[in-house]
């Protein structure tokens, strides 16, 4: 049938299961690390460490589970543009809320 032709036609990158296993394992380890870190007394670094680990996990998921590392430039640009817009909006909103009362007391 046309099966063979279809296979040749799609230049689709197939991510190997080995990568999935490594990434899945890393995500579980990082989950353990972030829980352990929350029990340590790190002062202001407690939330910073927790958010940093969450960001690392999210990036791993996006790059490998969601195949962005192997995707077209269009997909990469879309993901980056979305992230950039989101960070801009949340950054400007938070800086406004946190600084609105400065100098009032």
């Amino acid at each position: 049938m046309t099966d063979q032709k279809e296979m040749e036609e799609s230049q689709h990158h197939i991510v190997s299961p080995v990568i999935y296993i490594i990434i899945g394992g890393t995500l579980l380890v990082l989950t353990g690390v972030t829980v352990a870190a929350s029990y340590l007394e790190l002062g202001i670094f407690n939330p910073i460490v927790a958010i940093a680990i969450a960001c690392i996990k999210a990036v791993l998921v996006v790059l490998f589970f969601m195949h962005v590392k192997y995707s077209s430039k269009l997909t990469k640009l879309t993901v980056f543009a979305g992230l950039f817009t989101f960070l801009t909006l949340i950054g400007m909103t938070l800086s406004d809320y946190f600084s609105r009362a400065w100098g009032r007391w």
Partner: protein
Amino acid sequence: MTTSGWKSREKKRWPVSDSTAIAPAAHGAPEHGHEEHPAYLRHHFENVEQQADAAGFAMWLFLLTEVMFFGGLFTAYLIYRNWYYPAFVAASHQLNIFWGTLNTAVLITSSFTMAMGVWCAEIRKQSGLVLCLVLTFILGLAFLGIKTVEYKEKIEKHHVPGFHYSLNSFLDPDSDAEAKAAGDKPLALDMARHTEVYFSLYFAMTGMHALHMIIGIAILGFMILRARAGAYTAGHVTFVENFGLYWHFVDIVWIFLFPLLYLISRHPN
């Protein structure tokens, strides 16, 4: 060629439900007078690759709207946490780290099985695909089950915002096992009241996340039926792939919810 009943049922049971259905080429090519192409290639695309790229791009655009949606909730959470910090610290001590961690592990594992499912579809391994989808389905249900246990705890302690909301755990921490274990000091009444804001956001965020899980699980059930009929292992994997993107996105939302709600206020300073 699949040997199951999929091909014969295609027309009457799932008419144009997604991009798998279309292309008269399979049944009536001559009248169109064009080259032969896979049955799932829609006519407005040049080739299979372009069709897959377009579908992936559209899925990412949808996910960006989801990012903005959950982003609003995250922003609200951060603003209120900044305003009512002592209330948010005390309220977050009511969450159970054990259940939260277990749920994170369950969800990450389900993301892994989903990724393996996409791989199985790509290499056309039908039994593997069905197994992965079923595992993902079960892990998704397990997540919701654990969430139910947590919600039940909140309901029993009157920590659901509304008329029956109780400030006991925050005005008198010694009367409450979780608050006592965390060494909470009693809050003043006006600050204690703001714990309700924390729980409102807790239920809004985890509830919207759970709704996404429920929708995902429903689609998974549908996909399992179709995968058993051989729908995704004949070269056209777009639907599985894009559902995978959705499932991983829901996973990412939880990856951020977990530290923000459960972890970052363990040690108030």
